[in-house]
């Protein structure tokens, strides 16, 4: 099982590395959106510090939407996905591998970039730590929920906009708890509960979403 998982992850990472521009666009979009806010609302450090967690989280949510279309579409177009549905091993494990690879390519860079952007907003070291921890727990959830949406809209016209409409409402709890943790840390309250809830959502998503995504792929491919 883990052999298959590793194989799929390695394959998708190699494919992503062959098309590095795609990976970079997500990251650049994230940086741009975050950097646009101080220009839009004015550079008062007091207000920026207050806004920072929400801005970074919303930007992460939007940029994770951007790359969802790529999760299955290339495999769908060249017929690889059809072959994947035929393998005797569990499709859920295969899908989990693709989700993991997708997160490493589009989620992990955001997590690593977030502290630098947080500095633009004059966040404290402790708040930055909580932000990174929250993103580390939260961005895999975004990839997993996104996978369900991506599988449901596979091969549809206008699928890119539709997938945001389907996935964004389901991602709102992640946004609330993720930015809530940072806000709690800034105002000196206990932030562990927010992170614990994020971790709980992550575990639930880890159990259910690969299977749901596999079902959605079967529906889309028949």
């Amino acid at each position: 099982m883990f052999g298959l998982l590793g194989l799929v992850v390695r394959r998708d990472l190699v494919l992503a590395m062959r098309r590095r521009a795609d990976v970079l666009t997500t990251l650049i979009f994230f940086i741009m959106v975050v950097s646009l806010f101080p220009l839009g609302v004015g550079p008062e450090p007091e207000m920026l510090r207050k806004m920072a967690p929400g801005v970074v989280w919303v930007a992460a949510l939007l940029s994770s939407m951007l790359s969802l279309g790529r999760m299955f579409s290339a495999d769908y177009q060249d017929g690889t996905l059809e072959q994947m549905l035929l393998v005797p091993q569990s499709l859920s494990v295969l899908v989990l591998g693709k989700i993991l690879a997708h997160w490493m390519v589009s989620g992990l860079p955001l997590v690593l970039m977030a502290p630098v952007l947080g500095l633009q907003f004059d966040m404290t070291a402790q708040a930055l730590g909580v932000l990174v921890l929250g993103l580390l727990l939260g961005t895999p959830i975004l990839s997993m929920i996104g996978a369900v949406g991506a599988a449901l809209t596979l091969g549809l016209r206008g699928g890119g906009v539709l997938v945001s409409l389907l996935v964004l409402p389901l991602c709102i709890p992640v946004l609330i708890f993720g930015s809530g943790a940072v806000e709690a840390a800034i105002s000196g309250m206990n932030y562990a509960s927010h992170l614990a809830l994020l971790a709980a959502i992550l575990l639930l998503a880890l159990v259910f979403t690969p299977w749901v995504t596999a079902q959605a792929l079967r529906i889309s491919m028949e």
Partner: protein
Amino acid sequence: MLAINWFKYSAPTTFYGLAGRLVPWFAGASVILFVAGLYIGFFVAPTDAVQSEAYRIMFIHVPASILSMFIYLVMAGYAALGLIFNTRLSSMMATALAPTGALFTFIALWSGALWGKPMWGAWWVWDARLTSELILLFLYLGFISLHASIDDPRRADRAAALLAIVGSVNVPIIYFSVKWWNTLHQGATIKFSGTSMHVAMQQALFTMLLACWAYAVAMALLRVRSIILERERTTQWVQDLPEVRS
């Protein structure tokens, strides 16, 4: 032993006629109950001690909110039936329920805003229950638009069903949000253990709830008849229907 065919009305062919016979009953009941409920609500129920006259918005707000969640669960249930047993009619019912559910969600949000302005001094607050009800509206819209953007009706049914089932995790969150988070939106006044509400207010509330329910059933049946006609338009029995031939 008398053999009852439990699955007789699970075929669109037979259900089409049954739905046609049921629609006038539910529609009529809904009109009568609406008139009765509004009469009790406006003329019999006393003025509230704290909220004065504005509390009467709850006679539409509460039934609409309850139904917005209830219809979603029924819709997800039908969708799951359609997905598991591959029954066409269940998926059609799920599709037929979605617009009515979205309408009630919208009414709940809108009437809540009208109530919130005099009571809280704001049209909208980012309270847990309001936010989760808004997410419910987005889920309905997502269901409708996913279904609309897939051309093959069977694939549309199954894909939308999966989305409806995934989205149903939101319903308990809405329901318990006033308990889990200590928010501005008030908790439930009517509980199984009894209530502190005036009898006339309760009567108005329950009458309006039944009225909204009957309306939802009538609308869903009416819509499912159209969906059946649309999907089965190539079949002989639809061609033979008097309303189609004329």
